[in-house]
C-alpha cells in the first residue's frame, strides 16, 4: 500500500471510531477537551505504528487502550507532582490506585450510555447554539474544523476559536458528565434535538451564502438523528425530528432549479422526491406516534411534511388536514413563524382572503420584523386576490430582507411578475 493510502485508511478508521473513543475517555476524565487531545494523541501513534504493523483487527480497542495508557500516565505524573508539592500529613497519604481503578471501572460502563453522555455534553445549553453545533460536528461527527467552516459557512479561525471556547466553558462549568435523568432530561433532550435540526436546516435552506442547499450537511444531521434514535428508542420527539428530517431531505433533489433558484414545495417535480427517505420518514413518524408523541412539536411538523409527501401531485394535497395540524402546532408551540405558516395553509385550504385575515396578528409580531417569508407570503396572498401593486411591494420588501442569493433572485422574479 502506498504511504498515502495507508494514512488515508488510518484516518478513515479513526473517524469511524473517534466518537466512541472520545466518549469513553471523557467519561473517564470528566473532561471533553482532554479526551479529544488524548484521542488525537492515539491517532498520531496509530499513524506512526500501523503502517508497519498493519491495521489492528479491533482498531477501536487498540486506540482506546493506547489513549487509556496515556491518560493513566498523565494521572500518575500529576499525582507525583502534587505529592512533591504537598505538605506531608496523614490526611494526604496517597492511595495510589483506587482513583485509577474507579476510572477504569467507569470506562467499562455501557458504551451507548457513554456516547449519549458525550452528545448531551456537546449540546449543553450553557453553550450557544452555534458552539453546540460546531462541537457536536467535531466530537460526534468527526468533521475537521475546515469541513465545519465550509459547512456553515464561517472562517476556519472562527470555528476553531468557537470550539476552543466551548470546551473551556464546559470545563469551567463543572458539569456532571452523564446522561440527564429526571426533570431536566426533557429540556436537555430538547437542546440536543435543537442542535441537530439547526445543522440540518443549514444544509436544507442555507441562511447565508450563495448556495441554497448543502446536502452533505443534511446527511450529517440525518446521521446524528439516526444515531440518537438508536440510543434513545423510547423518546417520541427523537423519532419526530428524525421523521421530519428524512421527509424534508427527500425533497433535496427537487428544491432547486438548474440556475440555483429555489422551487416552492407546491411547484416541485415530485418525481424527484426520494421515496426511500419518505418511507423511512413515515416509519419514524409512526414510531413517534406509537410512543404517544403525536402532539410533540417535531412530530407535528413531521406530520405536516408527511401530508405533502403523501400527495402524488400538488393539487392532491390535503390542505385542510395541514391547516388542522397547524392549529394544533400553534397551541403546542406558539410562535409567530408557526402562525405565519398556518396562515399560508389556510390560504391554500380556504382561499387567499382567509390567509390575509390570519396575517393581521402575525404582522404585529416583533420577531418577524426582518423575516423575509412574511412579506413573501403576504405578497403571494395579494397576488392571488389580484392586488398586484401591493403584491409587488411585498415581494420587493421580502427580497430586500433575505440574505440568501438564490432566494433573493426568486423573490425579485415574483415581483416582476406583478407587472409595472
Amino acid at each position, binding site marked *: 500500500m502506498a504511504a498515502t493510502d495507508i494514512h*488515508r*485508511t488510518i484516518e*478513515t*478508521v479513526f*473517524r*469511524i471510531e473517534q466518537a466512541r473513543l472520545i466518549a469513553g475517555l471523557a467519561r473517564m476524565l470528566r473532561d471533553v477537551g482532554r479526551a479529544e487531545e488524548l484521542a488525537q494523541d492515539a491517532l498520531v501513534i496509530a499513524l506512526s505504528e500501523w503502517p508497519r504493523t498493519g491495521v489492528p483487527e479491533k482498531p477501536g480497542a487498540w486506540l482506546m487502550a493506547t489513549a487509556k495508557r496515556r491518560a493513566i500516565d498523565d494521572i500518575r505524573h500529576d499525582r507525583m507532582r502534587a505529592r512533591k508539592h504537598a505538605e506531608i500529613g496523614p490526611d494526604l497519604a496517597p492511595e495510589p490506585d483506587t482513583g485509577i481503578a474507579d476510572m477504569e471501572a467507569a470506562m467499562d460502563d455501557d458504551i*451507548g450510555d457513554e456516547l449519549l453522555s458525550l452528545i448531551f455534553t456537546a449540546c449543553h445549553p450553557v453553550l450557544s447554539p452555534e458552539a453546540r453545533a460546531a462541537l457536536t460536528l467535531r466530537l460526534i461527527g468527526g468533521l475537521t474544523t475546515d469541513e465545519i467552516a465550509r459547512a456553515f459557512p464561517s472562517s476556519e479561525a472562527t470555528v476553531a476559536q468557537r470550539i476552543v471556547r466551548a470546551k473551556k466553558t464546559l470545563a469551567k462549568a463543572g458539569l456532571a458528565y452523564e446522561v440527564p435523568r429526571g426533570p431536566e432530561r426533557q429540556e436537555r433532550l430538547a437542546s440536543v434535538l435543537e442542535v441537530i435540526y439547526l445543522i440540518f436546516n443549514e444544509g436544507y435552506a442555507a441562511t447565508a451564502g450563495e448556495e441554497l442547499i448543502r446536502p*452533505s450537511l443534511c*446527511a450529517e444531521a*440525518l*446521521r*446524528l*438523528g*439516526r*444515531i440518537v434514535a*438508536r*440510543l434513545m428508542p423510547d423518546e417520541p420527539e427523537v423519532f419526530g425530528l428524525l421523521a421530519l428530517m428524512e421527509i424534508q431531505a427527500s425533497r433535496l*433533489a427537487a428544491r432547486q432549479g*438548474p440556475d440555483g433558484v429555489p422551487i416552492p414545495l407546491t411547484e416541485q*417535480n*415530485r*418525481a*424527484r*422526491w426520494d*421515496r*426511500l427517505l419518505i418511507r*423511512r420518514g413515515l416509519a419514524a413518524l409512526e414510531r413517534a406516534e406509537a410512543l404517544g408523541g403525536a402532539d410533540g412539536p417535531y412530530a407535528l411538523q413531521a406530520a405536516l411534511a408527511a401530508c405533502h*409527501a*403523501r*400527495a*402524488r401531485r400538488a393539487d392532491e394535497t390535503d390542505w385542510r388536514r395541514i391547516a388542522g395540524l397547524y392549529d394544533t402546532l400553534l397551541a403546542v408551540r406558539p410562535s409567530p413563524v408557526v402562525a405565519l405558516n398556518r396562515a399560508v395553509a389556510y390560504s391554500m385550504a380556504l382561499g387567499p382572503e382567509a390567509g390575509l385575515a390570519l396575517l393581521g396578528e402575525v404582522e404585529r409580531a416583533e420577531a418577524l420584523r426582518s423575516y423575509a417569508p412574511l412579506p413573501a407570503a403576504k405578497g403571494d396572498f395579494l397576488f392571488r386576490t389580484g392586488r398586484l401593486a401591493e403584491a409587488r411591494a411585498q415581494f420587493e420588501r421580502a427580497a430586500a430582507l433575505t440574505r440568501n442569493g438564490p432566494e433573493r433572485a426568486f423573490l425579485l422574479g415574483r415581483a416582476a411578475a406583478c407587472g409595472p
Partner: protein
Amino acid sequence: MRVMVLVKATKDSEAGLMPSAELLEAMGKYNEELANAGIMLAGEGLKPSSNGKRIAFDGASRTVIDGPFAETRELVAGYWLWEVRDMAEAVEWVKRCPNPMPGPSEIEIRPIYEMADFAEALTPDISALHDRVREKIGGS
C-alpha cells in the same frame, strides 16, 4: 454519498445453504452496528438464482431465461444501501463485516449516481421522460 454494497453469491448461497447460528448472530450484530452508526438505509437477502429469471435483450427480441445461472461469482446474494461520507468509509465498514459465507467470498461496493451526475447528459425532454417514469413508479 450513497453506495450499494453487494454480497456476491457462492456455491453455498446458490445451494440455498442456510447460515449457521453463529453467522446469523454475527451478522445481526454487524447490522446493529451499521444502524448505530447511522449509515444503514436498507438491506435485504436475495433468494438463490434458481428462483430468479433473466430477460435477454437483443434489438427488438426479448428472451426469458429461467435460473439458476451459471456464473456464480458474478451473482448477487444480498445488498445494502448505505449513506457514507466517501468510498474510504464504505471500504472500512465492509472490512468489518463478518464473512457472509462459509468459504471465501466477495463483497462489492458501487457508488450510486446522484442527480448532479446526470445533469449534463440529460436534455430537458429526456429529463422529463425519466421524471414521468419515476412518477408512475413512485405512487404514495
